[in-house]
Structures are given as C-alpha cells and as structure tokens.
C-alpha cells in the first residue's frame, strides 16, 4: 500500500526516530557513567542470576578469609606456647638427669634443683594457660579463664569441645589444641610429674625412673606440636587458595556486571553520528513547503 505522505506523518515519524536515537544515546550514557551493564534484573535476567550467585559466593569467601586469619592467630599462639613448653620440658629433663646421675649431690643442691623444677612447672602452667583474645587455647570452649586449675591441675575444657574454623563450604579446621594430650590432666599431668620429681629430690629418692615418664610427656607434646604444625600449614595453604578465589570471583563478577569501556565508547560515538544525521535530515525534510515556491 502506497501511503499518502503529509506534513503531519513526516513530522511524526521524524519525531519518533529522533526519540529513538536520543533514548539509545541516553541508555549508552547511563551505562557509561554508571559503569555497569546490569543495573536492574531485566537488563539481563540470566546475568543477574549469575551476578547474585557470584556476590553471595564472594561474601562467603571473604568470610572464610576472615576465619582463616583468625585460625592462624589461634594456631600461632598454640604453636609458640607448645614450643616454649617443650624448651622448658627439655630443661626439666636436664635437671632431672642431673638430679638422678650424681648421688653425691648434697641436700642443698637437690633443693636448688627442686626449686628450679617448680619454677619450670609454673612456667609450663603459664604456657598451658595461654589465651588468645581471652580464650584458653588449650581448652578452647571453656569459660573458666584458664585451661588448668592451679594446684589440682584439672583440665577445665569440655570432653568433646573443640574450636573449629570454617575455611570452605565443607571444610573446617581445628584451631585450638587439646590440653589433655599436650600436658596431661590432674595427677597424670606434666605439672604433677614435675611436682613429684621435686618431692623425690627433696626426700632423696632416686629420680632416674622418672625420666621415662618425662620422655612420654615430651613425646606427647611433640606429637601435638606436629599436629598443630600440620593444621597451621593447612590453614596457610587454604588462605592462599581463598585469596585467589576472591580475586577470581571479583574478576568473574566484573565480567558479568561491568561495561566494556572501549565497546560502549565506540557504540556511543556511532550513536552520536546517527543522531546528528537524523537531526540534519529533520532540518531538511521539515523546512520546505510549496508556499515557498509560489510567487
């Protein structure tokens, strides 16, 4: 159908085309100034689903990074406490060997060794009661203030309590250390053992047989230290992975949400040209009328 063309139809279609051009320009400018491809879900519903999932993954992963940093703080504290305890224990073993080997020691010397052993016991108890952010690292879920009670050496932790840090959706790592394994509990504890050796020394009993007990305790402590070390390693590795995952997620989110600056600029440029062409055409089409040419 050949439609009749009148000034009004020309005017209308010109206006509609100008509107279309202008709205495309404003869309591109909005994208350019906002820096986002997706400003509302309907811009790209599939992309929105992806962006929301990535955001939630990113938030969760950032939390895992916090957990890992916290876990490293705990394990560091445990590690240095165990190392210090081991050094003290070695010194205690040396003293015990000294007390056992020379029957020629006089009561004064034995008393001196006993006093030093008691000092080591106090140092060990201090190490065992190390806290991190107000919590005992060797009785993680206890609210008693110290992992071992002065005097009785009772462990204050809960039987199956442990401090766990979540490093991945399905991975947790233990951040504290079981004080019962590292130091023993009550009469069987390393503190009671040192008390016993000091008492033996004072009473003149041979402390030679006690060395085996000390070695057992030291082995247990070493085992716990190795365990803590491996967990520390695990958290450190995990932290590296988490940092990388955060970077990856940010990159993916940006790929989904953010504009390609060069692409949008080129599009805007060509849209500007189109708009100017439309304006030029409008000026030419709407100007002339038959009235200009009659007389």
């Amino acid at each position: 159908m050949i439609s009749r063309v009148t000034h009004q139809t020309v005017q209308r279609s010109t206006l509609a085309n100008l509107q279309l051009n202008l709205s495309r320009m404003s869309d591109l400018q909005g994208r350019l100034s906002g820096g986002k491809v997706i400003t509302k879900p309907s811009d790209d519903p599939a992309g929105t689903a992806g962006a929301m999932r990535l955001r939630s993954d990113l938030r969760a992963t950032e939390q895992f990074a916090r957990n890992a940093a916290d876990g490293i703080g705990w394990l560091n504290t445990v590690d240095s406490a165990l190392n210090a305890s081991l050094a003290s224990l070695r010194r205690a073993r040396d003293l015990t060997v000294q007390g056992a080997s020379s029957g020629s020691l006089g009561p004064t010397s034995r008393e001196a060794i006993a006093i030093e052993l008691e000092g080591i016991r106090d140092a060990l108890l201090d190490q065992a009661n190390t806290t991190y952010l107000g919590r005992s690292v060797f009785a993680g879920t206890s609210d008693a203030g110290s992992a071992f009670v002065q005097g009785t050496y009772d462990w204050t932790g809960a039987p199956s309590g442990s401090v766990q840090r979540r490093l991945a959706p399905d991975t947790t790592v233990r951040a504290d250390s079981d004080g019962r394994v590292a130091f023993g509990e009550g009469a069987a504890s390393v503190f009671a053992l040192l008390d016993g050796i000091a008492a033996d020394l004072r009473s003149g009993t041979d402390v030679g047989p006690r060395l085996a007990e000390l070695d057992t305790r030291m082995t247990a402590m070493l085992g716990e230290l190795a365990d803590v070390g491996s967990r520390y390693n695990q958290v450190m590795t995990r932290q590296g992975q988490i940092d990388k995952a955060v970077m990856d997620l940010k990159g993916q989110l940006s790929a989904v949400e953010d504009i390609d600056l060069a692409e949008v600029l080129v599009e805007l440029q060509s849209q500007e040209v189109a708009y100017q062409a439309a304006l030029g055409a409008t000026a030419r089409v709407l100007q002339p009328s038959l009235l200009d040419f009659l007389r």
Partner: protein
Amino acid sequence: MSSFAGLSTALSSLIAQRQALEVAGQNVANANTPGYTRQRADMVSVESLSAPTMFSTKVGAGVGVKVTNVARLGDVFLDARLRSETATSSFSSAQARSLSRLESTLSEPADTGVAASLQAFWAGWQDVANNPQDPAARKVLVGTAGALTTQLASGHRAVETQWDQARTETRTLTTEVNTTAAAVAHLNEQIRSVLVSGGSANELMDQRDLHITRLAGLVGAAARPRDDGTVDVMVGGNALVRGVSVNAIEAQGSYTMAGATAGPSPDPVRLVWANTGTRVELQGGTLSSHLAVLAPATDGGTLARAAASYDDVARTLHDAVNALHRSGYTTTGATGLDFFTLDATRPPALGLSVAVTSDDVAAGGDPTALGPFDGSVADALSRIGASSGGPDALWRDFVVDVGVRTRTAEQRANVTEAARATAENLRLSQTSVDLDEETISMLAYQRAYEGAARVLTVIDEMLDVLINRTGVVGR
C-alpha cells in the same frame, strides 16, 4: 433556456468555489488539530432543466455546479485497526510499567539489597561461631538480623504501596471510562440531530473518534457504527454506549491488598456493569492490565505474587533459623530459644522480628559435652545461606523471575507500540492535512473562481450588446 441562465451558472460556480475554498481553509486551519480528519467539498455539475414532455430532449449545457456534501475523508477500517492496536499496546505498556516499577523496588543486583543483607546475616553467624564469648560479635549479629527484617518489611510495604496506587488508579480510570462514554453518547445525540436536519457533523465525529480511541486504550472498546450516524461502543461483547444511552461500569472489591488477595475468601478487585452487576470481560486496555496487576496470587496477580515471595523468604528464614537456634545453647546454658518471631496476625514479611537480645544468641551445642564457648550451632546456622531451598535461593529465584517477566513485558510493549504506531501512521496518512495539497486546491479553486467571474463579465458584455446596442442601426 433563458438568456440569463449563464449568469446563474457563473453564480453557482462562484458560490461553489467559495465554499470549496472555505473547506480548504478549514483544513489548513486544523492542520495540527489532534483527531482532525481532512474534508473535501464534493462538487456535482447541475444538469440542464428538461422540458416536461415525453419526447423532449435536453438541449444545451448544464446549468452550473453545486456542492452536495462536505466529505470527511476518514476510513472506518483504519480507525478500527488503530483502536484494536491501541487496546493491545495500552495493556502491554501498562504491564511493563508496573513490572518495571516493582523491579526498581528490589534494588538488585547491588550491595544494598536483601541478598546483601542475608549474606551479612550469615557472615555474622560465622563471626559469632568464631567468637561465641564476644558480646560485640553477637550484638553485630542481632543488629544485622534487625536490618534484614526491616528490609524485608519495607520491600513488602513497597509492594503494598504500589498495590494501593494501582487500586486508586483503577477507580480514577473507571470514572474516566464512564465520563468518556457519556461524552460519546452526548456526541451521538448531537450528531444524529445534525444529520437529521441535513447538516454536516464532521467536527463532532472527529471528537467522537478521539473519545472512542481513548476508550479503546482504557478498556479495549470497539466501535460499531449505526445507520443513523451514531456509534455503539462495545466492551467485551456488551454495549458501553448504545446510541444515546450509557451503561456505566464500576470497580468493586477491597481497597486493601490484604482484603483483596489474602485470606480464605478474598474480595478481589473487579469491574462490573453498574446496572446488572455482572463482570465486564475486558480484552485489552490499561484497566485490564490494572486488574491483572491487582489480582490475587492464585490468579497470577503480579503484586500479590511479589508480596507472597517476600512472605516466603521471611517464613523460610524464620523456620530454618529457629529450628537450628532452638537446638543451640547460649553461653549461660539457656536453650530452646527462638531467634525470630512471627506475628501471626500480619503477613510474615511484616510480622518477622528478632526475638532475642544479644545475650540470648545460642551459638553452641550442649555445654557439658562441647563447652560453653562452642560455636558449632552458629556455624551450622551460617550454612543455611548456601542451602538449596534456603531464603537466599528463594530470593534469587524471585529476583530473576521478576527480571525475566519485566524484560518480556518490555519487549512486548515495544512490539505492540510499534504496531500501534504503524496503525496510527496509516490512519494519519489517510486523514491528516497535507499543506501542499491544500495549497494546490486553494490555487485551483481561486482560478476557478476567477474563471467564473470572467464568464460573468463575458455574459454581461454580451447582454450589454443585446440590451444597449440592439436597435440602434443607422443611428
């Protein structure tokens, strides 16, 4: 034939050309009047008088010209097409508008939406799991939970506000339909009386067409012309306007979202014929879209479904968090505590609130086995966010669903608007005034007028010869 017949022939031309020129002037004057349909003076030559005898024949030329009619150069089929396209496009664009408004209240994807608040809430549980003894972590958690419930409630309220506005608009538009229909009926009456007395009612018809197209945009009305020049306006097979009488419509149903969409017997918003009380079956138009937006969720009401989604998220959050939280113990050993509480008398999204203070956050398992500073329950709670049927997944599904529907509605609105624009363009190309064409018509009529005047002069001179110069031979 009389000697003076030529004079009246010239006179008839003078009159006819002047009338035609007036019509052209009317066209030029209304070149930009909305709804104006161009007119043309229909001229017919007047045949010569015939002698009233059986065998007489016509002799000589006709006796001039007359304007029989001022024709209105419209096209009822193009009008009908424009109206049906207007009905469809009004419906789609109203749908797109309400969906895009709903979408804008979601504020997703962003760092401030409900999704972000949910994630902050779950991260807060992780912090509590790390430091159950720390009142600060628990306070932060309770604060985030409060922010989350506020955000869900304000989202739900935004939906309600939109519902209320759509409800008010429905009433206003219904009134507009009735007044427009009354205007059509009134114009019908005027047109009929003008036509009966043999006049031209073209301008009245233009006005009536504008009104009917407006009705098409509102309720999808269609026009059915009748022989007496009046037009019936049909909506869903029933007459909104029949001749000079109007059947009013009215909007019924509850004025609150809860009353219209919730409860065992909702009172949905509907359009009925005022005289019979039966439902108006709309086939397009803005009002039809409004009714679809206001409908209960079971009938696919956009806003009711959105509100239900907010409620779902709130209810799931309440159930999932409380189920785990009840199994947890506070640092002081209390257990069986609810973290959230729901006000049963209100929609879940509005009735959800935090039931605990920061001292009553149950982060740990059984204290005798796990110790008072255990964080295993808080850790388990933080995992709800990643569960497949959890509130996060529900919210994400809802946002994406709104996004998809908005996009589809916008595309449909664009397509139907293009179809409407085409129909309007076709109609305009038929009815609108072309100034070039009118200029040429004016030129033609002016020349014809000059010609007729010249004919008059010639006959006058001829008669002058006859009257003043005859019988003066040899004088």
